[in-house]
């Protein structure tokens, strides 16, 4: 598993790490005592992915809004 801090991960890295964590928990590969620590790492990764997704969504919205304004301000020729 990557030792990179969660905050420094790209979306893809965090998703891959999250899949590893969930897989290990579901396959029962983790001792009882360590299971909660891994779960907490999974929760951090999930939050990080959600944050990255929300940032991407905001960017898309911003681009859409800018395009909308651009379309709206284009002079309608021939009318």
């Amino acid at each position, binding site marked *: 598993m990557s030792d990179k801090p969660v905050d420094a991960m790209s979306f893809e890295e965090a998703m891959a790490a999250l899949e590893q964590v*969930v897989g290990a*928990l*579901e*396959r*029962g*590969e*983790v*001792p*009882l*005592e*360590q*299971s*909660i620590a891994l*779960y*907490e790492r*999974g*929760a951090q990764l999930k939050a990080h992915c959600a944050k990255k997704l929300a940032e991407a969504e905001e960017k898309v919205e911003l681009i859409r809004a800018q395009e909308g304004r651009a379309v709206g301000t284009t002079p309608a020729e021939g009318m």
Partner: protein
Amino acid sequence: MTCLVYTHADCERHVTPPGHPERVERMAAIKLGLAGLAVEHRDCPLGDEAEVLRCHPAGYLARVKAAVPSEGWAQLDGDTFLSPGSYAAAMRAVGGVCAAVDAVITGGAKTAFVAGRPPGHHAERDIAMGFCLFGTVAIGAKRALEHHGLSRVAIVDFDVHHGNGTQDLLWDEERCLFISSHQMPLYPGSGRPEEKGSHGQIMNLPLRGGGTGHDMRQVYERVVFPALADWKPELLLISAGFDAHADDPLAGLEWQAEDYAWLTRHLCEFAGGRVVSTLEGGYDLDALAASVAAHVGVLEERGR
């Protein structure tokens, strides 16, 4: 009538390595939780190997016995350790649950709590795991079915971890309804709703991390209590782990002591109030004491 509490000094002689959460001090926390409750204390008798053999193969029993070290520890998996006193402790837990089942079925008591360790609900037929050696609650259910001839028993496991061992031991047992609620994903990784047993008699209810007692109450009201009402058990056994408590270090649910009182009060509505509860997890000592006080407090009220 009364509520019987079974325990034994041998259960304090199952010693785990320093830093292990399933530790001897849990017994003192439980005693603290029980202080002041008008329960009747009994010593767990030593369990009979024949009771264990209702659930585990003879080869497994022999292997566990042979693995017990004369000093120090023997390690059976990443979590599960044997000390010189572990076998006797596990057999006291088995004996306690069998004696409690006997007392509640024959009318010696209405409710009982067995405070034994090591816990049992992760032990599969042939595998010691998750701090557990023998499937004590399943052994208790088999005692009720085979020895007393009951035909409908139910087990509710509210420990925060899935009762994979109990599920494995009772997978084919159509006379026993087994319901486990547990945080998921978490150790041991099993306990999906699709795992239903050979006769559809197993119910798994995964709970999301961070879930509160309020969330638990909704699941129990919607799913567990109706299932118990349909099943009409003659005896209800509880795998009582207290590690869904908000303060527990090994899990991420947010239950409080009063949630255990609420749950116990409702569970005592089934099986004519004949309830045998047996200790599983619970690793924050203060939370364990408070939760045991809440749980056994209700068993005592209902046992009168």
